[in-house]
């Protein structure tokens, strides 16, 4: 997901100032067999938990997201990454729901990850941090949800990797999830998605500053991370949105330079996106999270998704959304999920939204998306008899 600047007006009402919180648990067993000791989870919450503790919605973030999904930190202009969707009267209406978002493990924004201090050595983990998977991320989030005293989440929701976590939640803890919203997601990473991630990883590891991941006492591999981000960013856009946004416009010149200097607007934009990203993201985390994405397979290697959904409770609801111009996670991948759910007679709505914004469409202000989510949650809450605050 990209860094977007959306006008204040389009953002609408906000939850206001928010605070990053964190909680540490003694251990977390991982899919790889390793055990993370201890594990810290950073999170934010918006809205109020009702007396019955039944109005909680867990938001899951994408590759480059974090726990800061909505509102503002004091002294900062930039709101959380899903400010368009979370707030009073918005899709995830904080007047009605208690919204939680946590940083994934392996991340670099407060939860345990390769840039955290290993208590055994007093130094950053680097590559000694164990590999994590999407189901490990979800297992960590379950610790948090249990800690917050929430027996059942009204919804788990996210886009891209967030959507994959939402699906994983539904399959791993079906009794703890009333509904699942997965946007621009997939049941398993395709060879093309793995390929793009691998190019990003190679760019980071080819940077001499990377030094086997042990760079925390020196200059970080910013050049490599920036290239990884540039590649990623291209895959989040679309041919149409790039033509609209940049065309073949030149940057600060009237004719091409006939040299290797910066010529086109799109080059400048990508360089800027790459550069900005290095200021807020850890290169090792990029390696770990892209690996977690590539390992993701909801069927657990069984290959037959219909069987995965077989034991889900009848009253669990799904909302699956894809975007017409998303070529990174194309609509057919969402449909595979929907068809497997339908094959089990499960309650699942599916929409392929017309959009020219590619994969990143879920991050942009979108009235239809707001309306879909708002009503889907409303129906779920009514069916479950949830009292809304």
């Amino acid at each position, binding site marked *: 997901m990209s860094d977007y600047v959306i006008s204040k007006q389009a953002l609408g009402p906000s939850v206001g100032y928010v605070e990053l919180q964190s909680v540490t648990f003694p251990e977390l067993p991982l899919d790889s067999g390793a055990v993370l000791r201890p594990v810290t989870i950073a999170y934010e919450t918006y809205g109020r938990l009702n007396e019955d503790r039944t109005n909680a919605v867990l938001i899951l973030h994408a590759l480059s997201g974090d726990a800061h999904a909505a509102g503002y930190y004091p002294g900062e202009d930039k709101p959380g990454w899903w400010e368009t969707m979370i707030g009073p009267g918005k899709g995830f209406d904080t007047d009605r729901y208690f919204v939680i978002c946590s940083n994934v493990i392996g991340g670099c924004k407060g939860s345990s990850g390769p840039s955290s201090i290993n208590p055994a050595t007093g130094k950053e983990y680097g590559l000694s941090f164990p590999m994590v998977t999407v189901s490990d991320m979800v297992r960590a989030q379950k610790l948090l949800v249990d800690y917050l005293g929430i027996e059942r989440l009204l919804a788990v929701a996210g886009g891209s990797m967030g959507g994959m976590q939402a699906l994983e939640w539904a399959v791993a803890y079906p009794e703890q999830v009333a509904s699942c919203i997965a946007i621009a997601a997939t049941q398993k990473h395709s060879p093309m998605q793995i390929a793009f991630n691998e190019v990003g990883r190679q760019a980071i590891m080819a940077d001499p500053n990377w030094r086997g991941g042990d760079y925390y006492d020196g200059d970080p591999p910013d050049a490599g991370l920036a290239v990884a981000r540039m590649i990623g960013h291209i895959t989040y856009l679309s041919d149409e949105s790039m033509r609209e946004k940049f065309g073949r416009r030149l940057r600060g010149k009237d004719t091409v330079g006939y040299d290797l200097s910066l010529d086109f607007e799109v080059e400048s934009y990508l360089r800027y996106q790459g550069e900005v990203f290095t200021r807020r993201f850890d290169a090792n985390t990029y390696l770990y999270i892209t690996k977690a994405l590539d390992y993701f397979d909801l069927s657990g290697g069984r290959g037959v998704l219909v069987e995965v959904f077989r034991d889900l409770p009848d009253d669990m609801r799904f909302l699956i959304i894809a975007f017409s111009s998303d070529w990174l996670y194309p609509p057919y991948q969402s449909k595979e999920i*929907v068809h497997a759910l339908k*094959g089990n007679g499960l309650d699942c709505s599916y*929409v392929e939204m017309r959009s020219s914004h590619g994969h990143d469409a879920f991050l942009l202000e979108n009235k239809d998306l707001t309306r879909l989510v708002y009503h889907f949650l409303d*129906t779920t809450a*009514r069916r479950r008899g949830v009292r809304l605050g």
Partner: protein
Amino acid sequence: MGCDLASGVPRNAEGVRWDHLFIVDVVAPGSRVLDLGCGRGTLLKMLVERKQVRGTGIEIVEEKVYDAVAKGVTVYHGDFGEGLGYYPDNSFDYVILSQTLQEAKETVAVLSEALRVGRYVVASFPNFGHWKARWQLLATGRAPVTESLPYEWYNTPNIHSLTIKDFRIFTREQQIRIVREFFVGARKPLRFWPNLRAAYGVFLLEKSTG
């Protein structure tokens, strides 16, 4: 696409379409229902509220899907072909083709798929044999435009023009049994001479066992 047939269908005093009322009446409480071409979800919502069905719809027009979800209805955005294929046999008690059969390209395939995934099929369509249509064609020599067939030849979503009689013959040929039938005239339900007098026909169908 994007036309709303609904407006032309006669309604009862409460503003509910007669064909919908018949369908709500026919469907057994608590059954599983699939509405093909569910539009904005009006019928499904009524079935959920009045018959506590477990309902789901398929709709191709994106804006209509949003309205249906806003009504609390479950919808698949797509066409019948891809939407139906993934359901196992007998996934539903009823599959509804409300005013959509005449718009479906592969009529035979859609109907046989509907009868595969559903125990019963409810199909309704505007009657091309209505006396007004016959009269217009005869008297003016032009393609008829009536309350139930409100389109010009160049903008009609109806790619098949059929009469009640056509449909009855068709069901015989396809080994489909008509369990019940229901007809709506220009303003209200009717029973006699439907092929001449009915603006719409609604049929409850099942696979013929004989």
